[in-house]
């Protein structure tokens, strides 16, 4: 029986085919998937912020929350299962509100996506496809068996990358 694993904000999960990985209501957050086609193995993280160094000292560090720690956690976990040829896809990083004035904090979606691109480069993992930016929220679902990422938005409907 195929299962759909749900990933909440700042969480990450790993699974194998025929299961699917899903995260709902991505705004400025980015859903990133690392997968090994040969092993039919994949992991998804719901990344909230670009950099773990901004974590407050008294907070316990949630690895899925930050781009850098999430990518490292996914790579280590997938390699433990024997993954050797990892690839990546990602979606999200929207700017949900457009104010009439500029505000650096509101560009966090863009910064999340860029931080993930950098982390993937560091780990030498090719980014096969992405759907980032814009002004719409996204719900995404990754089919481990086919490596297809379905992306649903309120205004555009569903597309696949």
């Amino acid at each position, binding site marked *: 029986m195929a299962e759909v694993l749900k990933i909440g904000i700042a969480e990450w999960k790993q699974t194998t085919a025929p299961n699917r990985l899903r995260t709902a209501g991505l*705004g*400025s*957050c980015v859903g990133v998937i690392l997968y090994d086609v040969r092993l039919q193995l994949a992991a998804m993280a719901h990344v909230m912020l670009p950099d773990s160094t901004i974590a407050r000292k008294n907070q316990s560090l949630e690895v899925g929350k930050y781009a850098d720690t999430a990518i490292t956690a996914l790579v280590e976990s997938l390699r433990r299962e024997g993954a050797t040829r990892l690839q990546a896809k990602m979606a999200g990083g*929207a700017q*949900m509100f*457009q*104010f009439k004035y500029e505000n650096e904090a509101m560009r966090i979606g863009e910064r999340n996506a860029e931080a993930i691109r950098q982390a993937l480069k560091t780990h030498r993992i090719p980014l096969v496809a992405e759907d980032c930016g814009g002004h*719409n929220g996204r*719900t995404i679902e990754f089919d481990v068996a086919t490596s297809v990422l379905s992306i649903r938005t309120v205004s555009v409907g569903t597309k696949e990358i």
Partner: protein
Amino acid sequence: MLSEFEQDLLKELGNIGSGHAATALSSMLGKPVNITVSSAEMEPITYLPERLGGPERHVASVLLELDGDIRGMILILFAVQDAEQMVSSLIGMPFSFDDFDELGQSAWEEIGNIMSGAYARALGDWLQTPIMIQVPATAIDMAGSIVEFVVTSVQPEEDAALYIDTTFMIDQKVSAGHVLFLPTHGSLHQIQQRLMGHG
């Protein structure tokens, strides 16, 4: 976290803010607006999408940034059909966001403007500090995406928000609104200090 006494004070703030919003709406619409505040409490941010009916629920929202001694954001959310109903009352004809009707869209922005402004003024009066506001922005999208965007922009303290449930009755029709106030890091402490002055 806040004490029970402080939570009670924040509930009162929720009542005052909703009262201001109803008065402002009523003079804008030229008809009576009745309100019921069903709850006002501090909630962990992670619970918010579920309380709003799930992360994928389609909502109409207004976001207002607050500046001054108290910084943060006020986010107002309505189910899309409830927001459309309020716009219809204002423009006197049926309205749907799907129609991209400019008159209706600007009516919605105006409703958002006066409602969020009313909550901001209530907060400023209550805390006896001037609060500066800009023109709010609106978005029609998934509740989870909207809340997430606001949370990552504000990075609030305590990872909690003041959450106020208010129903607005206009023309015998009920619209259920959710108002979230998210203070930025440092501002919650300011609020606590000012609230103690009330005790």
